């Protein structure tokens, strides 16, 4: 675990400015087996210390790749000088942040390392299972990725704390060819929050996922192209989570609001059907630990949930302390940095559409002619809320019954228009947390949602 070499440096903080001092270590372990070939077998570690100083509306930041008291002193001095440089040239003259209560956040989870040999053996066993049971695949890849962030945070005003965020996943990629010769790929991440040994006890625990993925791939082999046009669809939880994150979440990050996003003029207005409520959960969601719990952000703000849309009305944004002051609201712990040399940015944590009251089977039964879309391989959205998601798995719905699988396609729409077409919401929820959100820095985030009946443009071929 990371040693605390920064708490003793708080006496060096300059008075009259807001200061953050952070020691951090990130670890990544990766094993990739592509067609049985070991193409990645790597262990990566980065550690260091950074300081950020806020003075009169501008920030100075500095970092060093050393975990020593001397490095902490150096970055404090450099960050202060950088803030002074900016203040001298810019002169915004803004006030210091409103104070938040001081406190200390205890360690949420120990980081435990695993030997590379154990990772490799696990992946080899999974790969052997696939190659023996499914020799007709065009290709297969099994990738293990375990990463963790560990931070010790000291602030001049707010909470101090020692927090961690470990994640561990096995990614399965299976490739085949459709009956008409179109190459096909499906992938499935398995895993979540925690150290590898906490989550994966034995390779056999992922075999059911392998079988299910293969079954879907075989359905896709017989797949047809979706008919292009404006269609009624049932978005599965993976896609509604993607929608919550990409198409709505980013537009309600306060820095993007100030940069001109569609959410700026939409505050307190109806942006979705009354059935839609959307929340960025901090550490606990619907009575359970959130997929990637965040207890304290990097500005010293204890994390709490941010309600974004309540019953279809846009209720608020996600903020850091500066934007919270701008909008006159309380910061809720969304300022997060990825590496020790990264400054905190406004980021999502676990963003989700909340479940409703409908049964999934009733939703499907209610669709006369449309599609049930279950998996995505890609998603992009604009600050206008216009979004595009790649759909890697889905099914036709004809007269209320699931039909043939469909080949890869895309769906698109404008979030605040499309969400108004939501007229059924399932009572179950699907979370995902294996990806990184990209916004200057990568960031592990969770996203989730129920099945939504709605209307979108579907790309067809």
């Amino acid at each position, binding site marked *: 675990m990371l040693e605390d070499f920064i708490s003793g440096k708080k006496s060096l903080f300059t008075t009259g400015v807001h200061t953050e001092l952070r020691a951090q270590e990130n670890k990544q372990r990766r094993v990739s087996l592509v067609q049985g*070939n070991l193409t990645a077998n790597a262990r990566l570690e980065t550690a260091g210390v950074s300081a950020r100083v806020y003075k009169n509306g501008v920030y100075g930041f500095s970092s060093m790749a050393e975990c020593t008291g001397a490095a902490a002193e150096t970055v404090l001095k450099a960050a202060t000088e950088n803030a002074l440089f900016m203040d001298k040239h810019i002169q915004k003259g803004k006030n210091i942040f409103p104070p938040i209560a001081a406190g200390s956040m205890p360690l949420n989870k120990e980081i435990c390392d695993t030997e590379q040999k154990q990772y490799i053996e696990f992946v080899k066993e999974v790969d052997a299972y696939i190659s023996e049971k499914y020799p007709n695949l065009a290709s297969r890849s099994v990738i293990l990725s375990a990463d963790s962030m560990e931070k010790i945070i000291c602030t001049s005003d707010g909470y101090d704390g020692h927090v961690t965020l470990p994640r561990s996943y096995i990614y399965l990629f299976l490739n085949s060819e459709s009956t008409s010769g179109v190459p096909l790929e499906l992938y499935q991440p398995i895993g979540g929050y925690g150290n590898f040994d906490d989550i994966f006890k034995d390779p056999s625990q992922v075999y059911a996922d392998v079988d299910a993925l293969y079954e879907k791939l075989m359905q896709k082999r017989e797949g047809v192209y979706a008919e292009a046009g404006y269609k009624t669809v049932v978005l599965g939880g993976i896609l509604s989570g993607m929608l919550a994150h990409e198409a709505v979440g980013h537009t309600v990050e306060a820095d993007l609001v100030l940069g001109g996003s569609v959410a700026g003029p939409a505050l307190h207005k109806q942006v979705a059907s009354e059935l839609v409520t959307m929340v960025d959960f901090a550490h606990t969601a619907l009575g359970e630990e959130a997929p990637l719990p965040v207890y304290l952000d990097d500005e010293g703000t204890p994390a709490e949930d941010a309600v974004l849309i309540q019953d279809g009305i846009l209720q608020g944004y996600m903020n850091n302390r500066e934007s919270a002051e701008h909008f006159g609201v309380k910061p809720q712990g969304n300022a997060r940095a990825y590496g020790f040399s990264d400054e905190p940015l406004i980021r999502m944590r676990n963003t989700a559409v909340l479940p409703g009251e409908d049964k999934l089977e009733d939703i499907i039964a209610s669709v006369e002619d449309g599609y049930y879309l279950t998996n995505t391989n890609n998603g992009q959205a604009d600050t206008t809320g216009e979004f595009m998601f790649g759909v890697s798995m889905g099914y036709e719905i004809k007269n209320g019954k699931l039909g043939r699988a469909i080949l890869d396609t895309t769906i698109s729409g404008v979030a605040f228009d499309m969400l108004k077409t939501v007229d059924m919401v399932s009572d179950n929820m699907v979370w995902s947390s294996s990806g990184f959100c990209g916004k200057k820095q990568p960031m592990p985030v969770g996203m989730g949602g129920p099945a939504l009946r709605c209307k979108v443009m579907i790309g067809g071929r």
Partner: protein
Amino acid sequence: MEDIRSIAQITGEALKQEGAEKAQYTVTFKETHEFNVDGGEFSLFRTLFDNSLSITAFKNQKKGSAFTNKLDAAAIAGTVKECLASADSGIADSAYDIAPNQGKECFREGSYEPDADKLFERTRELMEEIRTNHPKIVMEQMIVSHVKCHTLYQNTNGTEFEYFRGEYSISMMYSAHEGNKTTSFFGSSVNTDNLDKPFIELGSFAKDLCDVEAQLTTVPVEGKFEGVAVLTPSSLGSFIYSAVSNFVADSVILEKTSIWLDKLNTKVADESITVSIAPTDSRICCGEPFTNDGFKSEDYNIIEDGVLKSFMLSLYVANKSGFERAGNSSFSLIMKNGNTPYADMIKNIKKGIIVGRFSGGNPGTNGDFSGIAKNSFLIEDGEIKGAVSETMINGNLAEMFNNVVAVSKETVEDGNSVLPYIAVDKIVISGK
């Protein structure tokens, strides 16, 4: 902390002691000065001091890799041990290797030392230029930086490459706003080795800003039709990236899923198409001098006059597949320009679209793509009619490069790539 040569020496000795049969290791000292503009205002000045050590070691034809930024002797010894332990646990493969002895060479590129004051002034000048001449632009974020990097690469075959580089980069993310109208966001970036010119004169910054302002006026796209798509240098770069990822990159050759697997030295594109990866080209800023496998980088053509000449292969996949490795491991992309002036290219199009940015799903391994044409304009009867909204395009990457109608005379150089505009036929364009 030790100096860069001492760190390399400690690493080399530790690798020997731990029984590495072959190894390569890179020590990097990096310093970054960066200014950020958020919501149109200066927000942050940051200085970063980063060091790192990257090791790849081989034992019994097994391979392990490790990366750390803890560079004291004890930490290096620990990282080397971990690297060899990973190799020990790996799978033996005769295709694993590093470059044979390439000798010793030192490379210097760009402005090694930053001029932070001038960088700040050039940034302020650009913001003022945008405020004055592009008042409808809202700058979501601008990041300008100077990165100074000293790298020392050594391997157990006796190669030593040392590289000193210093480069400035400017990237902007913005949209245009007028009353209730707003455009999609657009990103522009340039890398340069000097601060001689005002930033507005670099790359396609000035045109991009004008184009985004013009996107405030939209025209409807009715129904679905097949037409010509003009790919701007910016969107062309992303299409080429998708094509090479799907057809010539390591993973698809290793998996044998590339549809170009048996197409080497055959025609895969229109003969007007020549695509090179050329880090030593003078128009590329601070290009890669040596590859990830320890070879001195050489420029090469992926496609030459429409003929597939090379895959983009690492040494490992080259050994594995029997194809030749690529001349370098960068993505310094250059497409040869053509003879058609851009204005004539537009004039000759009956019905089509200028694609400024493509927001689409990852194309399938067969090259099928489908997505939204962002920051794009409708062309009818040789004239640009206005920007489009909620318009999708689809086609196939492999077919697209065979359906080239024209390649522009003009190119855009942004320090990372040199690309023309190209017009391609038979793209399906659908409005709402």
